[in-house]
């Protein structure tokens, strides 16, 4: 049959196409050197934000990659991106089935799935980034929740904003109010600003609707930011994934000043580098790498692992392009506050549960 | 087979559907490659591998289904393919229009170059097709069934155009299956049957009956033999009927008409005078604005089409492909299209395919439908046989009233004869027939009474001796 011959030709073309490209394959290079007696396999499952989200998944994955690069840890890492939240259990199971030693899951949305998997697979270690709500007391011993004191970097960012604002009006555009981390950032930001500048006015809004666009509605973020600029704000803090990124973009377009969140957005979101004064960071990479190190070095801690100023788990990012626009005096003041937070001699005034 | 065409002549290619006329012309136009044989133009052997080759040789073709782009203007359609000559980025509409205007005045083909094709009547669209071919430099023009879609008046116009073309020395090949037309327009007639040339004649040397015999391969009755009607009680009455067309204009304007059992009432009229709307209103496909439809002394005006059909009204719609059959379904399903759900063809909601097939086999035989079997797709049948499927379906449900709209349009001579005989024999068995036809000959040969429709009204109902071609023609034109 002529038709089948033609299919064969197509198939042959396919093989040729594949063969030509055979040499291109390159996955993230393995860190396991010859000195390793055992290679630890670590898998990471993203939430629906993807590895390229310039924020959460990206930074957590950097932590895993840093562990892989550290030859003393003998880690080999892989990631699976989740397309829908229905895939979470399945993607975790993929790593378990492949006999991975540890699974890192990113974001509170994977919480239920991770806890269930930890209970079902006691020999595998699980780390949840930014989530530690355990319904079981005590939680499974193979499970750790990595959480952050977001009020501290928020406080630092707010302190800086309070010193830098010319209109005495600053603003924030935040994700869902039902997510405690978001609220802590915002409250820290507000308190920090009020401390350095008692006359400051803080405008802000949380994303109201709960739906598929949680943390992923940059258009809305941009719109809200523009509203605040119209009300006189000259600095905006974007707190909430892509929604917050929308606010940053608005600042860039209107030549205002912006403050990023979670990671150093100068690196992760270079589009807004020109307006970015700093970012209120949680060092997800440090936390993730720490939890992997605990697993490899047999110093595993289960339960909740809190990262704060003391263990360098949070902070604010470098000023980058704003270095010249922030006076030495202001820098010193902010640095002083950071040191006091680290020592514990200064509190943010935000109650932490 | 052999065929030769001379410059300055109209050469008619006559044959039934499927006799091979169109295939032959597709070979000449480069759409189909011949298995053997050769084509010569002006004595030189030519290779025609594609329509482009044909156009270069001066061969133009007007297809049965027009190849025009409706939203474009006449001029745009005509210069399509050569629009570069009028364009430097933008098309120079003025210059293109002028070129088209000159061409149309040269040949007496009046068209407005700026009119959009979608707004033109079928006859004018055909002129655009002819102009398109002439514009591309056609010296040999092939017209494939050019009258199939035209009204009698438009046919007249077409014949005049064909004449003026041949006066210019061009050759025209006129493909048709209509006998009267070839006698009227052709210089020579080549009759084809089953892919072979039967004979080539001049009109003066041939009679209608002889041509028909050559086409069909056996003697054909050109006039239907029928006994005088013995009408009974009125089975179908329409009273004071007012119906709108699709544009919500009044199309049927207060029509009263009665059809009695055992008679054929013909509705004559130029197409577009409300006949379609009248028929659709009777079978329940179009809303009544006023008046009522009475079947067997019962008012059925508010009944659905299904209820009317099941009560005993049969309907042969004018547009076979659009309304009469479902091309993608087999012959058997088409034969039960309007009573598929009744016993024995269905039990509860389950179709009884065996019963359908048996029934279909019976009808295929009784109505001489040339199909491979009941399971063959109806799209694979010739036009005549498709129409026989419709006629067989509508006449086999023991109807009491038959609404037959253009029952033989686009049907070959052999099938026309058969369909006419069927209608007449059912009339003799007591069927009330309302026949709507734009072919005056059909009305004249079948109808016991003739109602002439003009601008939505029945202007006259003629009986017996009153039924004359001249008189009806004048009434149709709104003169009398």
């Amino acid at each position: 049959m002529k038709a089948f011959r033609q299919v064969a030709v197509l198939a042959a073309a396919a093989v040729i196409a594949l063969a030509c490209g055979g040499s291109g394959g390159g996955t993230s290079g393995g860190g396991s050197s010859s000195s390793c007696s055992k290679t630890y396999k670590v898998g990471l499952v993203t939430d629906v934000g993807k590895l390229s989200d310039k924020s959460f998944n990206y930074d957590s994955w950097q932590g895993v990659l840093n562990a892989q690069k550290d030859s003393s840890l003998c880690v080999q890492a892989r990631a699976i991106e989740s397309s829908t939240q229905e895939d979470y259990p399945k993607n975790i199971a993929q790593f378990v089935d492949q006999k991975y030693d540890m699974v890192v899951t990113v974001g509170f949305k994977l919480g239920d799935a991770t806890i269930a998997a930890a209970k079902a697979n006691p020999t595998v270690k699980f780390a949840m980034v930014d989530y530690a709500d355990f319904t079981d007391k005590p939680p499974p011993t193979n499970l750790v929740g990595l959480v952050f004191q977001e009020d501290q970097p928020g406080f630092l960012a707010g302190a800086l904003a309070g010193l830098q604002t010319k209109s005495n009006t600053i603003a924030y555009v935040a994700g869902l109010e039902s997510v405690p981390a978001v609220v802590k950032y915002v409250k820290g930001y507000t308190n920090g600003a009020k401390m350095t500048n008692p006359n400051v006015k803080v405008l802000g809004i949380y994303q109201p609707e709960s739906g598929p666009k949680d943390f992923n509605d940059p258009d809305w973020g941009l719109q809200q930011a523009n509203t605040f600029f119209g009300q006189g704000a000259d600095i905006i803090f974007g707190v909430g994934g892509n929604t917050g990124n929308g606010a940053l973009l608005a600042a860039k377009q209107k030549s205002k000043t912006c403050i990023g969140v979670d990671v150093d957005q100068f690196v992760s979101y270079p589009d807004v580098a020109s307006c970015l004064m700093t970012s209120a960071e949680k060092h997800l990479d440090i936390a993730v790498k720490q939890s992997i190190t605990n697993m490899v070095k047999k110093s595993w801690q289960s339960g909740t692992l809190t990262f704060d100023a003391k263990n360098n788990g949070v902070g604010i990012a470098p000023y980058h392009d704003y270095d010249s626009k922030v006076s030495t005096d202001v820098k010193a003041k902010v640095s002083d506050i950071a040191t006091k937070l680290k020592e514990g001699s200064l509190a943010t005034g935000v109650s932490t549960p | 087979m052999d065929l030769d065409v001379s410059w300055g002549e109209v050469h008619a290619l006559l044959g039934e559907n499927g006799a091979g006329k169109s295939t032959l012309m597709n070979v000449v136009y480069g759409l189909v490659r011949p298995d053997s044989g050769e084509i010569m133009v002006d004595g030189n052997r030519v290779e025609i591998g594609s329509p482009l080759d044909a156009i270069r040789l001066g061969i133009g073709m007007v297809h049965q289904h027009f190849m025009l782009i409706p939203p474009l203007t006449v001029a745009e359609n005509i210069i399509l393919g050569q629009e570069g000559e009028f364009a430097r980025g933008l098309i120079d509409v003025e210059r293109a229009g002028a070129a088209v205007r000159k061409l149309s005045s040269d040949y007496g083909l009046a068209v407005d170059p700026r009119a959009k094709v979608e707004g033109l009547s079928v006859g004018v669209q055909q002129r655009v097709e002819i102009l398109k071919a002439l514009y591309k430099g056609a010296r040999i023009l092939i017209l494939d069934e050019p009258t199939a879609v035209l009204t009698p008046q438009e046919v007249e116009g077409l014949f005049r155009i064909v004449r003026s073309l041949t006066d210019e020395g061009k050759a025209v090949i006129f493909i048709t299956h209509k006998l009267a037309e070839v006698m009227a327009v052709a210089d020579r007639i080549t009759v084809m049957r089953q892919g072979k040339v039967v004979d080539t004649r001049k009109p003066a040397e041939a009679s209608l009956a002889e041509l028909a015999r050559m086409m069909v391969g056996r003697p054909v009755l050109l006039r239907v033999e029928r006994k005088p009607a013995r009408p009974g009680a009125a089975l179908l009455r329409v009273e004071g009927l007012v119906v709108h067309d699709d544009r919500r204009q009044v199309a049927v304007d207060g029509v009263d008409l009665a059809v009695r059992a055992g008679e054929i009432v013909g509705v004559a009229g130029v197409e577009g005078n409300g006949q379609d709307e009248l028929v659709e209103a009777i079978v329940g496909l179009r809303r009544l604005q006023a008046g009522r439809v009475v079947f067997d002394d019962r008012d059925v005006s508010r009944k659905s089409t299904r209820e009317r059909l099941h009560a005993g009204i049969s309907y042969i719609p004018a547009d076979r492909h659009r309304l009469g059959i479902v091309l993608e379904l087999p012959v058997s399903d088409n034969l039960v299209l309007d009573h598929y759900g009744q016993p024995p063809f269905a039990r509860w909601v389950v179709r009884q395919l065996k019963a359908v097939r048996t029934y279909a086999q019976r009808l295929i035989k009784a109505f001489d439908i040339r199909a491979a079997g009941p399971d063959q797709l109806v799209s694979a049948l010739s036009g005549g046989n498709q129409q026989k499927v419709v006629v067989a379906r509508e006449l086999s449900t023991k109807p009491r009233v038959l609404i037959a709209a253009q029952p033989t349009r686009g049907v070959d001579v052999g099938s026309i004869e058969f369909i006419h005989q069927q209608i007449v024999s059912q009339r003799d068995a007591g069927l009330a027939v309302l026949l709507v036809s734009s072919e005056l000959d059909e009305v004249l040969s079948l109808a016991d009474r003739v109602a002439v429709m003009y601008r939505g009204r029945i202007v006259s109902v003629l009986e017996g001796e009153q039924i004359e071609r001249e008189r009806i023609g004048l009434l149709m034109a709104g003169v009398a």
Partner: protein
Amino acid sequence: MSRRWRQLLISAVVVPLASVVAGFLVGALAILVTGSDPIQAYSALFAGAFTNHNAAAETLVSSIPYVFLGLGVALGFRAGLFNIGAEGQFYVGALAGVFVAFSVHRLPGIVEVPLALLVGMAGGFFWAGIAGVLKATTGAHEVITTIMLNYISFLLASFLVNTKGLLLAPNVSTPRTPDVDPAAVLVTLIPGSRLHAGLLLALIAVPIVWFLIERTTIGFRIRAVGFNIDAARTAGISVRRTIVITMGLSGALAGLAGIVQVLGVNKHMTDTVAAGYGFDAIAVALLARSNPWGVLPAALLFGALRNGASFMQLETQVSSDLISIIQASVIVFVAAPVIVRWLLRLREAPVQTLQITQREEVETTS
């Protein structure tokens, strides 16, 4: 081989198969561009879909909703209706069914399961029926109305599932409904896997839908309307009623997919439970050429792609988004048989083309 069978073979088997091959080729190009090895990626995809531990069972789990949804969309196609709203009907079916399934208690499974399934189907029937009624009465195109109804159902599901006092279960990190009654859960077919009895329902649904289309008077009306709406009306078929019923049945199958997914896999409902299945199903139905039997292999293919994607990413770090590229290309080739025929040098005209046209529906006097 007779001409007709050859034609059938080409249109029903060769062209879809070639479209799939071509889709994978386009996918391979995309993998190459991103600097990975297509052979490795596709091997991992295959392993993740079939040969890994539980992979075959998981592929079947992913295929089950595709079967119901594909059948539903295909049914619509047969009447010339383009039901884009399967995703939304999935939600409404799941919502209606899950409400029954977590509200009932202490009834035997033989009662609870069919009850939940029926209510789920009714939900889908009702939701799609709205689009059907709108089309039949006002001529509003079903593509537009079903898209709009999708949004309403997404937000409705989100609202009900996220709101305390409505369907939100207490103390959960991801908003979801309470678990369904244990007796309402579809039994697991292979212990240790998630493969549930929905597979059997899907396998039964195929011949039932085939029978409905090919052997019943309803199916005959659906096909007649789909092939030639004017001829159908002329033959006395009520086009309006057929449109409403077809849309309803199409939606009922989508709703069934939803409640089966809830009772079989999740045991509760989230506001993302449809997970794009309903949109993919349009592709499944196209690939199946609207033939119920064709839905089975098409659903299996899409289930395998969906299920194998994560292992492919694990093994080769090729993004699971690649699957969307493959799916989309397959559909481009299926929807454009001309391209495939040209690639294969097949001259014959397509046997079946999908018509999406706005038709005027004026019916009899009322």
